[in-house]
C-alpha cells in the first residue's frame, strides 16, 4: 500500500521559446544618465551582432510561471527523504541561504582592497581552522570548486611533494569500489591507474596491497568509510605499507559524514584528503552544483598548496602570493566563497558536540534501515556499516526485476530512489544513505515502501518492471536520446509529437 503520497495535477509547460512572441518583455531599465553611444560607431560595424536569433521574449509573469511550473516536476529534499548513497542528501538549512545573501558578502568583489574584505577573509580562515580540527589535518585550502576538483588538487600536491623528493612516480592505486572520479582524476594528473580488487569483506586487501606497492606507486586513493559504507579497519596498516615504500595515502572524503567527531583521518595516516561541503556540511546540491571541495593536508604539503594563502599579521588578514613551491592556482580568485559561508554557518550551528551527534544519528539511521530491510533484500557484504548500506538485487533478479526497476517503483511510493548499480563491486547494487536528518517516521515509511515492493515482485513483477506509474513523465527513452542527440531547442524540432 502506498501511504506517503497521492497524485496531484501538474501544469504542462513548453520550453520558454515556444511562449515567445516579438515585443514581449519582462524587464525595465533605468533612464540612461549619460549620452547614448552608437554601437556601430564605437565598436565597428563588423563587431556588432544582429539580434539574438531565437532568444526568449516573454513577460515577467510568464517567467515566474514557467520556472515555478518546471520546479513542480522535481523531487527534492524539501519534499522528502532522498536516500542517494554517497551523495549525503541532508537537510539544507535556510539560514545558510540568508547569510550567504547578506550584501557585504554577496556583493564583495574578489579584488576589493584587503582592508575592505576582512570579514570575508575571517570567514574563510575560520572555516579552514574548523575543517582542520574536524579532519585532524594541519592545513586546508578552500580553493577547489567541488569534490573532483579537490581530488585533482590533492593528487597534484602529492605529485609536487614526490617531485621534490626526486621522483614523481608513475602509478596511482584505486580500489575497485571507488567513485569514477578517482581514476579520472589520477589520469588528469598524469598518472597511470591501477585498480586493486577488494577482499571478501569489501575492504582493501592488505596482503595484496603489500605485494603491489613498490617504488612506482605514488599513492593509494581510498574512500573511508568506503562506498559499501564499511570502515577500512586496517587503515593504519594500509598507511604504513604505503609510507614504508615512500608512497602516500589520499582519502576521498565523500563519506566524511560517517566520521565527523568520531575519528579523524589525520590520526589514521591520511596525508591528503578532500571534503565535499555540499555533502557533509549541508550546502545545497542545487540540482547538481555548486559544490565546494576543500583539501586538507599534513604539514609537509603546506608549501605546495594553491595560491594565494591566507596570512594573519598585526591583526589583519592578507593574501600571500609569494609561495614559490605552490602547485599554482586551480581556480581563479579564492574558491566558491558563497558555499564556504553556508558550510561555516552549518558548523557554527552544530558546534563540536552537535556535529558528532549528527554523525551518530546518520550511522544509526543507516543501521536501522539495514536491520529492517535485511529480511527482504540480499546483503552481500556483512561487515558492520557506517552511514550507508548496500544491498543487492540478487533475490529480485531471479524474478526478472533489477535494482533500476525497484528504484523506479520507489518513486511511486513518494521517495527518491537510492543510488543504483554502484558501487560496481556489488552486482545490482542498491546503495542507501538516509543521513541524520530523517526521522524515524520517514524511515519507517521508506521501510514500508521497500517491503511492499519486495512483496509486489513476488506477486506482480511486471508492475515493478514498468514503474513508475504515477509520475507525469513515465520511463524516459535514454537510448534514443543518446543515439540521436537533440541538445538544444530549435523551432519545429522535437523528439515528441505529443503535448508537453
Amino acid at each position, binding site marked *: 500500500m502506498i501511504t506517503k503520497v497521492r497524485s496531484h495535477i501538474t501544469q504542462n509547460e513548453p520550453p520558454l521559446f515556444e511562449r515567445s512572441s516579438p515585443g514581449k518583455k519582462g524587464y525595465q531599465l533605468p533612464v*540612461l544618465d549619460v549620452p547614448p553611444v552608437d554601437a556601430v560607431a564605437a565598436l565597428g560595424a563588423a563587431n*556588432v551582432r544582429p539580434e539574438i536569433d531565437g532568444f526568449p521574449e516573454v513577460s515577467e509573469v510568464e517567467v515566474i510561471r514557467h520556472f515555478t511550473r518546471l520546479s513542480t516536476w522535481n523531487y527534492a529534499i524539501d519534499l522528502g527523504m532522498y536516500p542517494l548513497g554517497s551523495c549525503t542528501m541532508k537537510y539544507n538549512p535556510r539560514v545558510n541561504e540568508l547569510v550567504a545573501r547578506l550584501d557585504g*558578502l554577496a556583493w564583495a568583489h574578489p579584488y576589493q582592497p584587503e582592508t575592505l574584505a576582512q570579514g570575508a577573509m575571517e570567514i574563510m580562515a575560520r572555516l579552514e581552522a574548523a575543517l582542520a580540527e574536524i579532519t585532524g589535518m594541519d592545513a586546508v585550502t578552500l580553493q577547489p570548486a567541488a569534490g573532483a576538483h579537490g*581530488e585533482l588538487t590533492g593528487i597534484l600536491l602529492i605529485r609536487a611533494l614526490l617531485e621534490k623528493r626526486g621522483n614523481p612516480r608513475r602509478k596511482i592505486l584505486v580500489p575497485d569500489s571507488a567513485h569514477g572520479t578517482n581514476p579520472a582524476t589520477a589520469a588528469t594528473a598524469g598518472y597511470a591507474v591501477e585498480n586493486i580488487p577488494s577482499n571478501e569483506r569489501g575492504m582493501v586487501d592488505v596482503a595484496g596491497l603489500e605485494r603491489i606497492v613498490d617504488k612506482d606507486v605514488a599513492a593509494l586513493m581510498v574512500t573511508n568509510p568506503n562506498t559499501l559504507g564499511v570502515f577500512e579497519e586496517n587503515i593504519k596498516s594500509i598507511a604504513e605499507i604505503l609510507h614504508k615504500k615512500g608512497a602516500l595515502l589520499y582519502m576521498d572524503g565523500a563519506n566524511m559524514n560517517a566520521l565527523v567527531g568520531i575519528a579523524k583521518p589525520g590520526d589514521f595516516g591520511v596525508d591528503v584528503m578532500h571534503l565535499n561541503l555540499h555533502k557533509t556540511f549541508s550546502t545545497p546540491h542545487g540540482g547538481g552544483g555548486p559544490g565546494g571541495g576543500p583539501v586538507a593536508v599534513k604539514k609537509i604539503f603546506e608549501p605546495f598548496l594553491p595560491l594565494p594563502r591566507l596570512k594573519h599579521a598585526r591583526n589583519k588578514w592578507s593574501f600571500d602570493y609569494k609561495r614559490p613551491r605552490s602547485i599554482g592556482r586551480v581556480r581563479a580568485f*579564492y574558491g566558491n566563497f558563497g558555499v564556504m559561508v553556508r558550510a561555516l554557518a552549518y558548523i557554527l550551528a552544530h558546534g563540536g558536540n552537535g556535529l558528532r551527534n549528527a554523525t551518530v544519528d546518520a*550511522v*544509526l539511521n543507516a*543501521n536501522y534501515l539495514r536491520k529492517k530491510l535485511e529480511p527482504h533484500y540480499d546483503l552481500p557484504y556483512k561487515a558492520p556499516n557506517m552511514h550507508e548500506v548496500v544491498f543487492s538485487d540478487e533475490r529480485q533478479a531471479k524474478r526478472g526485476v533489477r535494482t533500476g526497476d525497484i528504484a523506479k517503483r520507489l518513486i511511486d511510493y513518494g521517495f527518491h530512489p537510492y543510488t543504483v548499480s554502484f558501487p560496481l563491486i556489488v552486482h545490482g547494487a542498491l546503495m542507501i544513505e538516509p543521513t541524520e536528518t530523517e526521522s524515524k517516521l520517514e524511515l519507517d515509511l521508506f521501510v514500508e515502501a521497500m517491503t511492499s515492493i519486495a512483496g509486489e515482485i513476488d506477486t506482480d513483477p511486471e508492475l515493478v518492471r514498468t514503474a513508475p506509474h504515477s509520475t507525469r513523465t513515465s520511463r524516459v527513452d535514454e537510448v534514443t536520446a543518446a543515439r540521436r542527440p537533440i541538445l538544444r531547442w530549435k523551432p519545429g524540432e522535437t523528439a515528441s509529437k505529443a503535448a508537453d
Partner: protein
Amino acid sequence: MLAACGLASAEDLFSHLPDDVRLKQPLALAPGISEYEIVDYFRARAAENANGYASFLGAGVYAHYRPVLVDAVVSRGEFLTSYTPYQAEISQGTLATIFEFQTMICQLTGMDVANASMYDGSTALPEAALMAARVTGRRRILVARTVHPEYREVLRTYARYEHMPIEELAYVPESGGVNLEQIESTLDDQTAAVVIQSPNFFGIVEQVEAAAELAHRRGALLVVLFTEAVSLGLLRPPAEADIVAGELQSFAIPPSYGGPFAGIIATKERFIRQIPGRLVGETRDSRGHRAFCLTLATREQHIRREKATSNICTNQALIALMATVFMSVYGKQGLRELAEQNLAKAHYLSSQVTPRFTGPFFNEFVASSNGRSPVEINHALLKKKIIGGLPLKQWYPELENGMLLCATEMTRREQMDEVGRAFQAVERVA
C-alpha cells in the same frame, strides 16, 4: 531504534572501529549557536567588508543588477535541494531548465552545442584546451597575454602534467588587442589551439575572425573565451571559433568574493563527443510525451573512469539556473539594451580619463594615470567611498601606470565624474 538494531547504546555503533582510530576527546569547536546568533555573526563579518562603496572593479567579476525573479526561482526547494538529475522521471524540472540553458548559450555564442555548465570560466579554459588537444591530437597551446591572468595560471596548473606546452602571445602596444602577426609566426603543426579572450582582459574586442583564419590554416582550433557575458548582447558572436569557453557571472550571479560562478563550454556539432561535462538531451517518455534526460554519458567519469573526457562530476546547475532566469527576464531586446547601457556608461567614463589603448572596448578599459600611481589614485578615491579600478602592474609590469576601469548599468554619472576628477587632480599635480 537502538533496540531495533540490537544495540545497547549509540557508542556500540562504532565498536567495530579499531580503538586507536577512535577519537578520545570532543572536537575543539565552540558549542552550537542559535539561528539568531548565526545571522548576527555573519552580519558582523559582512559589516567588516566594503559597504556602501561605489566600485569600478571588473576584471572578470562584474556588478550587474540582479532581477528579483532570479532569487525567487532559485530559492524554490525543488531546485535548491535536488540532486543531479539522474532519475529523469522526477527531475524533469532541472532537466528542462538545463536544456533551455544549453539552447540560450548556443544562441548567444553562435555555437551548435553547449554543456550544462562548468565550475567557472577559469576552469572551463583548461577543459577547452584539453578538448582541443583531444580533437587535434596535438599538445601545444598558444594563449594571448590578454587572457585573464588568473585564468592563465589555472591553465598552467592543468597543462603541466598533461604535457601541454603553453606559450603566450603578446598584445599590440597601441590597440591592446592580440598580436595577429605573432599568432601567424608562432603557429606550427604541433599547435592544438590558439586561445584568445574577447573582450579581452583590457576590455578590448578582439579580431576573432582573423584569428580563426590563422589558426585553421595550420590545422589548429580557435578557443574564444569571454568573462563579460553581457557583451554578447551587442557583440557579434564568436561563430568562427571551434570552442567557446566562458564565465556567466554577469548573468545575475552575485560577485560573492569570487564564487560560486558558472562556466560554459560550447562547440561545433562535429566535436560533440569530445565536450566535457554534463549534457541534457530531449527525448520522449514511454507514453510519447516530450521528456529530457542526461545523455552521451559515455564521455563521463562515472562510466569511463580513467578514460573519461574530464574528471568533472558536480557542475553548477543552480548557478546556471540563475543565468537562465536572467536571460529569460531580459530576453532578446533587454539583453541588447542592457549591453548598450554598459557601452554608453563605459564610454562616458573613458571621456573623463585617458584611455591607454585604441582598440574598441565594451564596458571596461585601461586608463593611464599621469603622475601619481594607480594605487595612489585609488587611495584618494577610497576617501570618497569609491573603490577605483584594478592596478595592472602586478601582472603587466609595462603597464605600471595602467588601471583597469569598469562601468556597468549600475554605475552612476556623478561617481564617474568623481573618478575623472581624481585622475585630473593627479595630472595637475604632475
